[in-house]
């Protein structure tokens, strides 16, 4: 029993150290990415916000192509914010270790910490932009408040987990092969139209639905949308599938990262 308490205590102190490390890396990341000039770290969410605004405006203008009495603003907001969430994280994690090799000189900085700091920054940015835009659109009356806020949050978290696991996995693989970086960009572009950002699964023919539902993010986006305006369409999702895929990917990613962090040599 005493040994247990001791080990728990050592975990707690180690966790305190790791938290400080991640926090420091997070702040460093904010500064190196956005700098101190003009609006500084506000770019964190202004950048994705501008993207989402633009896409929302475009889609609102081409409303006719979507038909239905779908709330187009909610559709665009959930769709594009979700894309930002799962697409930017891998982009930030691929080849994230090499430029930070010098940091690994510090004994307490580990490979995982660097990646987690970047991921947290990305999640924080897209979440803030999603949140701020949502509040903004609700205030000016373009958007009805979500029908089930908890479901939206749950779906968002699940999607964030999926993005994180994909990012960790690709980040670890990119350390072993340069091909990952080369392949990620085209595949991210290919995945964008398939990811459910620009369609509802219900709109697709049956065969296409079956194929598209292999992608975990489609389930998450459908789930988020059902929380937002579920009474207006029929959602197709299986959250347990999305979560299990994320869990498996996380497992593989963590194993790969342990391997990478053993092999990596600080410059």
């Amino acid at each position, binding site marked *: 029993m005493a040994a247990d308490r001791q080990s728990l205590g050592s*975990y707690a102190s180690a966790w305190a150290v790791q938290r400080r490390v991640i926090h420091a890396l997070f702040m460093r990341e904010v500064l190196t990415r956005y700098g101190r000039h003009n609006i500084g770290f506000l770019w964190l969410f202004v950048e994705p916000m501008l993207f989402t605004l633009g896409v929302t405006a475009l889609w609102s203008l081409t409303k*006719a192509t979507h038909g239905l009495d779908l709330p187009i603003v909610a559709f665009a907001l959930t769709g594009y914010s979700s894309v930002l969430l799962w697409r930017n994280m891998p982009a930030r994690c691929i080849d994230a270790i090499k430029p930070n090799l010098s940091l690994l000189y510090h004994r*307490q900085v580990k490979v995982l910490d660097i990646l987690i700091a970047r991921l947290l920054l990305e999640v924080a940015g897209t979440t803030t932009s999603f949140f701020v835009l949502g509040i903004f659109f609700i205030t000016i009356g373009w958007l009805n408040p979500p029908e089930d806020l908890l479901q939206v949050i749950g779906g968002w978290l699940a999607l964030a987990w999926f993005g994180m696991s994909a990012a960790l996995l690709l980040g670890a693989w990119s350390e072993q092969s340069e091909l990952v970086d080369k392949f990620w960009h085209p595949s991210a572009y290919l995945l964008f139209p398939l990811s459910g950002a620009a369609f509802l699964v219900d709109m*697709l023919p*049956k065969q296409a639905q079956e194929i598209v539902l292999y992608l975990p993010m489609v389930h998450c986006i459908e789930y988020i949308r059902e929380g937002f305006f579920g009474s207006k369409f029929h959602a197709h999702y299986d959250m347990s599938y999305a979560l299990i895929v994320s869990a498996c990917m996380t497992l593989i990613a*963590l*194993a790969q990262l*342990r391997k990478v962090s053993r092999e990596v040599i600080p410059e």
Partner: protein
Amino acid sequence: MQNTIFSRIKNVDRLFLIIVIIPTIIATIYLGLFASDVYISESRFVVRSPDKPASTGLGVLLKSSGFTSGSDEIYAAESFIMSRDALAALNKGGRFEKAYGAPEISLFDRFNGFGGDPSSEELYKYYRNKISIEHETNASITTLQVRAYSAEEAYRINAALIGMAEAMVNRLNVRGRQDLIRFASVEVEEAKARAASAASALSAFRNSQGVVDPEKQATVQIQMISKLQDEVIGARSELLQLRSFTPQNPQIDVLATKVKGLEREMEQQLSLVAGGSKSLSSTTARYQRLQLESQFADKQLAGAMASLQDASNEARRKQAYLERIVEPSKPDEALEPRRLRGILATFVLGLIAWGILSMLLAGVREHKS
């Protein structure tokens, strides 16, 4: 012996125990001992209704993208099956509640297994869990699945639901047909009444004025007048001859009387055609109006009758009906729960979670100062 087992268990990783072994044991106990057999009764149906033409370009666009392939009636049937009304009909006399709250069903699966006073909302929630309805948009086939803890119950509920859905579609039909025909038949009734009153007005006028058709009568009369005129002219010229050549001829008086008589007769006939209060010319105007009204009413009646015929044809054509493709099945084996699968899934998921957690914890431990 006991000691070695105990120490062995103690040696097992605590995390592994909590995340993998204990959930697997719980799943094994639940699925192996408690979980009741679930029988699934399945049926399939389509709701057919004639194509409603997509009127606008947008409608065509939507149709091609698969939005309107299901008719309105199928959504009505689906939402009816998932409604409180359907549950209330199934639960007449507490039958549904009794079937799912039977003591043979395990405590965890039974409705209201842990006692208490269940609200009807809880029952509805439970009901929604047991009924699944899936609509294939492209083939517009709807699959209805009912899960119950006995085969007969599953079959009974499925059959009852599909019967009620069918009745509802029929009700919608009757209502739609009545709506379509009602206006047309009201119009026919009105037109009939108008035609009858116009005809009776015309005949009353004929009786009171003693004319059948003033126009024709007038021509006859005018012919007669012209004949009389001829005779008058003939008689007059004869009279003139006699007066000038044989003034003492006794025929003169006779002829003069004849001319007078003829002239009087002619005037009388003339006054019948025009001038007098009962003359044909004064009745013609009223007669023509009445006749026109009567003709118009007849035409209206014919039009209304044609549109009633159209409406009833249309109603017959628009009829939607629920067609059963697969009758509710009577399951003879419990398909759920899939016990081994469930245990295995719990175990594998536990392993994954354990892997993730232990690696994350190892990552934390690396920061030990």
